[in-house]
């Protein structure tokens, strides 16, 4: 139990999110462009992390399907920042496995002139610690 609790605290610390601010309006999930690809939706991340029910989120595909577009964060009327929570759960997984999914030295060979700069920044946020 206490390790679960520590995980909750750690995710909240990493993300800076206070899930109790959520009023369960569903604006984040109403906004999310990756909704159908994610088995857990932004508002569920908020309530599940709050309850300490984190394991299913870590096992989920949703943490990789989230586009990190931050639309949910932008629109949330209570300033909860669900995308930051999703990011923190993802980082917890990456850190546990002790490996980055993206190393900076591998980036140059993947570069493509069409690729927006933002995608690289976003990929770093998503796949490396």
């Amino acid at each position, binding site marked *: 139990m206490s390790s679960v609790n520590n995980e909750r605290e750690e995710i909240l610390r990493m993300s800076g999110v206070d899930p109790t601010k959520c009023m369960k*309006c569903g604006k*984040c999930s*109403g906004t999310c462009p990756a909704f159908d690809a994610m088995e857990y*939706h932004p508002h*569920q991340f908020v309530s599940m992390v709050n309850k300490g029910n984190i394991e299913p989120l870590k096992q989920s595909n949703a943490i990789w399907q989230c586009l990190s577009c931050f639309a949910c964060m932008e629109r*949330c009327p209570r300033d909860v920042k669900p995308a930051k929570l999703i990011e923190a759960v993802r980082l917890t997984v990456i850190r546990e496995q002790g490996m980055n999914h993206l190393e900076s030295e591998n980036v140059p060979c993947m570069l493509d002139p069409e690729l927006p700069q933002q995608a690289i920044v976003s990929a770093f946020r998503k796949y490396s610690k």
Partner: protein
Amino acid sequence: MHKIGVFVCWCGSNIAATVDVKAVAEAASKEPCVVYATDYQYMCSESGQNLIIDAIKEHNLTGVVICSCSPRMHETTFRKAAQKAGLNPYMVEIANIREQCSWIHKDMAEATAKAIVLARAAIAKVQLNKPLIAGESEVTKRCLVIGGGIAGIQTALDVAEAGFPVDIVEKKPTIGGKMAQLDKTFPTLDCAACILTPRMVEAGAHENITLHTYSEVEEVSGFVGNFTVKIRKKARKVKMDLCTGCGLCTEKCPMKKQPNEFNMGLDKRGAIYIPFAQAVPKVPVIDVEACLKFKTGKCGICSKVCTAGAIDYEQQDEIIEQKYGAIVLATGFDQIKPTKFGELGYSQYPDVVTSLEYERLMNAAGPTKGHLLRPSDGKPPKEIVFVQCVGSRGQSCRDKSYCSKVCCMYTAKHAILTKDHYPDTNIHVFYIDERTPGKNFDEFYRRAVEQYGVDYIKGQVGKVYEENGKLMVQGSDLLANEQITLAADMVVLAAAIEPDKTARSLGTMLTASMDTNDFFTEAHAKLRPVESPTAGVFLSGMCQGPKDIPETVSQAGAAAVKVIGLLTKDKLLGNPCVAHSDEMLCNGCSQCARVCPYGAITYVDKEFRVPGPKRVETRRVAVVNEAVCQGCGACTVTCPSTAMDLKGFSNRQIMSEVDAICK
């Protein structure tokens, strides 16, 4: 030599749970001049007060210190008790050991030590107190109501019925406020105009009510019972006394392209216009920004067609000055324009409207003559999506933090009315929580669901975009855990309400306090809900916080009762704790008059005897008008020669408190 009694209150457990009251009484009894010290469960109770009265008599007390709650709560109670025992009421001092001690500390030892220090300071002060006698001031038996919505109208009618003259200052050309724009009203669905118009007419015709429409308050001075107010009556360019309200001028005006404010800009009006058919007074105004005559010097058609000769292009603003005993704030509200919510498309798509716009689209006197037609192409909408809580209940920079309180109910009303007239329309409502706490309110909302088949969706809308001539509304259905997209013909946003933009400047003029949202604050949230903390200023309607019409009208009546209570008094007891200048120290520098917010200080030239051959010398010295001074103390801290002092709060008294604390 003073004989001081100290009374330490437990306030049940409010104080006694954190402060060792016996220790405080014990410590106080050792202070100089203290001849009696005790503690008691409830000092403010009748037996508590009797305890004080008996002690004053028995021990011939010359000063009393009560260690209790804030003086705002019970200073008057204890002063009255002292007076009953024959002691001057200003020989009572309060040491606040509740709000400033027991409520904010946890540790008993610390709190007790602090309570003892606070008691010691009060004991030191009371030794320098002087018996004071309150002066009296006259009450001007006239009331000013600012804002002529249903709140202002109701307050004015109630005060006028009690026999007092009332002036209503309304900035728009007519009284009526937002209620005049509503179609039907929840929860009974009676037509807003049908119930409002008679009140407007009554207010317009009442012998005790004077309407100043198209007018604004310019300046306020004075104090409770004696306010002096300057009102700017803006030039209508139409003579009120001659105009018959026939409306011919408004028909003939060629400048018919002005957005009609009353219909939320959904249709046009002329440069000379009467806001709506039932306007009171039914006299047009010329919008000089739009009028050809004012722009080019040509036209003048309205003047030609007016058989009454009422048009007066030369008319100027007029400033009138009037005295009032009481002022009622009834400035109401506005609905925000949800332009910051780009994702909802309000600025982009004409068929995304606010609920106040929707009221006008349903109203028989509205831009579509009561036929529900969407603004873009004038077609009747078949699929309508309502979005609640737009801009309410949020913490981001786009949102108001409060619940706007009326939108859940009026959205249910819009849904019911629409279904009633157009049963083949499909209606969806996105909601976060359905808030219907009022008499017959939940039943009303359930009727929308059960009788009219309105589709309530628990969730919010993420975005609205256009596709093949439809408004695509993407949102979450939280109970189904789905994201859904509805194809709609119209989207109605229940946008947040906010106080009128002019409220803040009025608040400053009247020194009436406001909260961070610019709603006026009440003197006590529970026990004095219609009074502002500024004496003589009362609150009515939405300007104090979101509320519906029944609540507005109840509050308006309550404010009227408070006004009547004040105006029936012939004289008001003043506050004797006012400023006083020592002529021997004053050098007439004028600093104090500059800082006095009430204009209480004037200067006179006075002759003084001086040593030397001249014998007398004329000097300019400050004089305080005690009836006007409110005892704020601004002058005393400003005076460079320490000539100004406040009775009851003299510099010596305050320094003795500081000394006692630092002892």
